[in-house]
């Protein structure tokens, strides 16, 4: 019986390969977008974890120098003698590679490439004073270092590991250490840290890498985009499954009438869908791999530029990723098919004998849809007004998008109904009425188009606003024509004396990592002069802000700090244990993940006398001449001088990379929506014959019917685009004013880009015309015999 049932169910797909293709393609595309984005995220996170595992970042408490970045080796020895189980680490840059020296005898298990988490044995590591790195990193070091290189794929990108003494030699850091890792289990009797090493501070383990936390928001955005694309795909699948079930209602009734038990039938249909979901999901995961492989280099560059996170540019096939791709495909199918399966399970055996009941059910469904839409939109409004937190931000997005999608058919029906009432000619009246009748079949595809277009408008508005703001911000923040890095405070002092007559302003870059309002932050000391007074546009400020800052009477806070600590102008910020100053200004600090405060240079120096500026911004009318003087007369190397234009070009380059990622996702999502319309129209074309036959019999030519089909697709696309624009702008507002603030801590001004929207609208129209062209052509060429069958009651 099972075999007979399966053969009957499967025969439907065999006879309707297009529908099968739609279903599998919808699932594959949805899974591809989702799993592609997830693969990118997983790869990036795996890189952070590899880095964290290698560097011990976040997993263990660490001892760091209170000032500077070096710990004398004697301090380590003193701590060990005092019973502290600590392990030394030396780190530094060799070309662009982070070289890490560890002591394998004292390093906690699993750290670096040795032990449980690593790929080599301790004796090998000790006997072979080699530098271990993955293949790409090793290639960078080849010829630069004189130590042998060993390839170890598990090591994080752009990181190399070696024995501590080898590292000290290569980094010219003999006798000094960078930090000390504190083992989790320490002896009970040990002298306090303040007694043994008063110059060190202990930083607690943070349960994950810094980079992972910093980039969470970026990945959350990517995930949201992936989820949106998946939702678009689910709409396609929902449409395809709904259509297939609708077409098989008669078959289901016959199967049951011939003795197939309902439960068995439902199980078989569910199994059939599971099989299709796995097939579609499998193809989707393969496609997702291609999507991810093409996106990953840009994402890696973006993450490096924005957060300094090292991400491997090469994609690996991870079982968890395969499984999650298949799982999401099955889940999507389940979401899309549950309604259809429940409908089959509840369908009375003699359902087709009660067409009115079916029509009534559809009417009830419409009312439910209207109510759900209204409810979701109201909820979105409530969340926008009273909600709080990142999850709420995404909840708001979900309510807004799903609510609007559910409202689309009702909106279209209302507009078409008005058009119908205004229509004069009989053909026009039939056209509008027929379009309304088609809405139910097309609504899912149109919802997919709405979501895709809104996502395009929203995300491109956000990114373009970001770029516009960021460009202005760079002009403001990178005012100095040249940026100089010196080797030591002594060289810095000499440099200041040297450049004084050659520059209009010298701006030392003084900073210290600290905690402000109980959050990790940076405190900067600024030499307040014309550059700050003329170039800095503050988001909010007191009228005499620069005078008060210069006098050491107030502090500037970046937006992130102000928002997170719920501080604003006039509030007091504690910048040292016994120093609290009012906030006189809040500045935009786009791209910086943590809080920042700025005080005048004299106050900073008084608070942190040990911190001496080694980097400077120099203002000059003739940067080229100054550069030459610095190199020829002062003896500064070319690497120590950075041109403002260089930094700007680099920063903007990062954003262009970000654009590439979002633009690619935009195009993919829109393509999926275009595909949804194409497939819906193509499938509907076959079912439309009974509706078109009477119009044909009454005098409309098949060619004219085909033309009307094309016009219908264009009109529906225009109407959908009309709703997509405000929805997209609302989406952009939520992203900029809610999600961005929650995720990054700063709010971006929103700009609109009418030309971009017009181009997008045009794309949507072209997609609709292309999608409708073939189905329309097929309709225009339906053989008269096929149309006549409608009247012969033999279809």
């Amino acid at each position, binding site marked *: *019986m099972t*075999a*007979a*049932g399966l*053969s*009957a169910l499967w*025969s*439907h797909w*065999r*006879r*309707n390969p297009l529908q099968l293709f739609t279903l599998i393609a919808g699932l594959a595309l949805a899974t591809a977008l989702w799993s592609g984005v997830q693969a990118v995220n997983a790869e990036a996170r795996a890189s952070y974890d590899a880095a964290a595992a290698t560097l011990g970042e976040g997993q263990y408490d660490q001892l760091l120098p209170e000032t500077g970045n070096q710990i004398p080796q004697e301090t380590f020895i003193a701590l060990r003698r005092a019973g502290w189980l600590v392990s030394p680490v030396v780190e530094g840059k060799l070309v662009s590679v982070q070289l890490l020296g560890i002591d394998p005898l004292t390093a906690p298990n699993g750290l670096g490439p040795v032990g449980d988490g690593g790929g080599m044995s301790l004796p090998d590591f000790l006997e072979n004073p080699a530098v271990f790195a993955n293949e790409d990193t090793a290639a960078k070091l080849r010829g630069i270092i004189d130590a042998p290189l060993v390839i170890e794929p598990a090591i994080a990108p752009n990181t190399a590991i070696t024995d501590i003494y080898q590292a000290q030699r290569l980094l010219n850091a003999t006798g000094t250490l960078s930090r000390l890792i504190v083992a989790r289990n320490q002896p009970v009797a040990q002298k306090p840290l303040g007694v043994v090493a008063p110059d060190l501070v202990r930083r607690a383990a943070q349960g994950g890498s810094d980079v992972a936390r910093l980039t969470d928001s970026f990945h959350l955005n990517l995930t949201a985009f992936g989820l949106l694309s998946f939702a678009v795909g689910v709409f396609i699948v929902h449409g395809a499954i709904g259509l297939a079930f609708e077409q098989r209602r*008669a*078959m289901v*009734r*016959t*199967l*049951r*009438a*011939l*003795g*197939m*038990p*309902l*439960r068995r039938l439902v199980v078989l249909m569910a199994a059939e869908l599971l099989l299709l979901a796995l097939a579609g999901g499998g193809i989707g995961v393969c496609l997702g791999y291609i999507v991810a492989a093409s996106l990953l280099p840009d994402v890696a560059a973006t993450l490096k530029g924005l957060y300094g996170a090292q991400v491997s540019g090469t994609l690996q096939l991870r079982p968890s990723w395969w499984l999650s791709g298949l799982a999401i495909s099955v889940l999507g199918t389940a979401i899309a098919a549950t309604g259809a399966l429940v409908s089959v399970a509840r369908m009375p*055996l*003699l359902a087709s004998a009660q067409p009115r009941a079916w029509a009534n059910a559809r009417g009830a469904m419409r009312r439910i849809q209207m109510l759900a839409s209204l409810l979701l939109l109201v909820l979105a409004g409530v969340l926008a007004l009273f909600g709080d937190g990142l999850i709420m931000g995404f909840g708001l997005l979900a309510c807004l998008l799903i609510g609007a999608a559910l409202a689309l058919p009702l909106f279209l029906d209302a507009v078409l109904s008005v058009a119908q009432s205004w229509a004069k000619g009989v053909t026009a009246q039939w056209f509008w009425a027929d379009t309304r009748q088609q809405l139910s079949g097309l609504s899912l595809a149109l919802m997919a188009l709405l979501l895709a277009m809104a996502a395009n408008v929203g995300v491109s508005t956000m990114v373009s606003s970001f770029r516009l703001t960021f460009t202005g911000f760079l002009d403001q923040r990178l005012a100095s024509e040249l940026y100089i890095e010196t080797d030591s405070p002594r060289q810095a002092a000499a440099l200041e004396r040297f450049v004084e007559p050659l520059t209009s302003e010298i701006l030392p870059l003084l900073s210290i990592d600290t905690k402000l309002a109980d959050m990790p932050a940076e405190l900067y000391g600024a030499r307040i002069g014309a550059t700050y007074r003329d170039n800095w546009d503050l988001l909010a400020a007191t009228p005499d802000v620069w005078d008060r800052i210069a006098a050491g009477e107030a502090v500037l806070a970046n937006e992130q700090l102000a928002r997170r600590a719920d501080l604003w102008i006039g509030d007091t910020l504690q910048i040292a244990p016994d120093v609290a100053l009012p906030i006189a200004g809040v500045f935009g600090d786009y791209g910086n993940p943590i809080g920042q405060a700025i005080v005048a240079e004299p106050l900073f120096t008084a608070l942190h006398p040990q911190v001496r500026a080694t980097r400077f911004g120099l203002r000059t009318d003739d940067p080229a001449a100054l550069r030459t003087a610095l190199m020829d007369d002062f003896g500064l190397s070319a690497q120590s001088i950075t041109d403002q234009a260089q930094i700007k070009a680099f920063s903007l380059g990062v954003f262009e990379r970000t654009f590439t990622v979002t633009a690619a996702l935009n195009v993919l999502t829109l393509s999926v929506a275009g595909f949804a319309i194409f497939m819906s129209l193509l499938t509907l074309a076959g079912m439309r014959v009974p509706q078109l036959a009477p119009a044909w019999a009454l005098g409309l030519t098949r060619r004219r019917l085909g033309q009307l089909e094309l016009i219908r697709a264009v009109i529906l696309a225009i109407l959908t685009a009309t709703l997509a624009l405000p929805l997209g702008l609302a989406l952009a507002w939520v992203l900029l004013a809610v999600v961005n603030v929650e995720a990054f801590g700063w709010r971006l001004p929103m700009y609109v880009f009418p030309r971009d929207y017009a181009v997008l609208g045009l794309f949507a129209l072209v997609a609709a015309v292309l999608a409708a062209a073939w189905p329309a052509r097929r309709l225009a060429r339906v053989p008269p015999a096929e149309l006549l069958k409608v009247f012969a*009651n*033999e*279809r």
Partner: protein
Amino acid sequence: MLLTVKALTKSYSGAEGPVPVLRGIDLTVAAGDTLALTGESGSGKSTLLHLIAGLDAADGGSITLAGQDVTQLDDGGRAALRRESVGIIFQQFNLIPSLDIAANIAFQARLADSYSPTSARELADALGLGDHLQKYPDQLSGGQQQRVAIARALAARPKLILADEPTGNLDEETAGEVMTQMLALVAQTGAALVMVTHSPRLANQMSRQLHLRQGLLA
């Protein structure tokens, strides 16, 4: 007795309360009987057929078919009874459009695990379908499709065949041919046949006739 129906009642809900369709039907059918059910539209003929087949649930009374009370069976039990003991021939043929003719004929027999390729082939030949076995339903005429439906019902070797206006969609000549073939084949299998029809001519070809009027046997 193959089929015994006692005091069978059925109502449908209407705008102004329940509308009785069957008001207490009693009838019996023995193996090999051929019974015509006639009556005006809305008299309850098709409803009676659906209740006997277990396609719908009765409000009251009992239907005993092949020793089983249909009204006491759950959905699974009724489905089992249908596939093993009943063959149904619908006015609209109700073939499975995506299966070819051979698979359609074999379908119910395969469901009931009683499929015999030889007897299916003989049935197809007897009904003039031998040359159409690889075709699909939409490639056949209405008369041919109804022959396929008859072959499908008979291939499962049911004890009772229920036919709901099986020739209602066919022209008179074709209807006559189909009817003759059907009666001959039913006689060969020894099954009983209950057929709903509007046609007095077809009803006269059956061994018994019952007339339904406003939910009662006249």
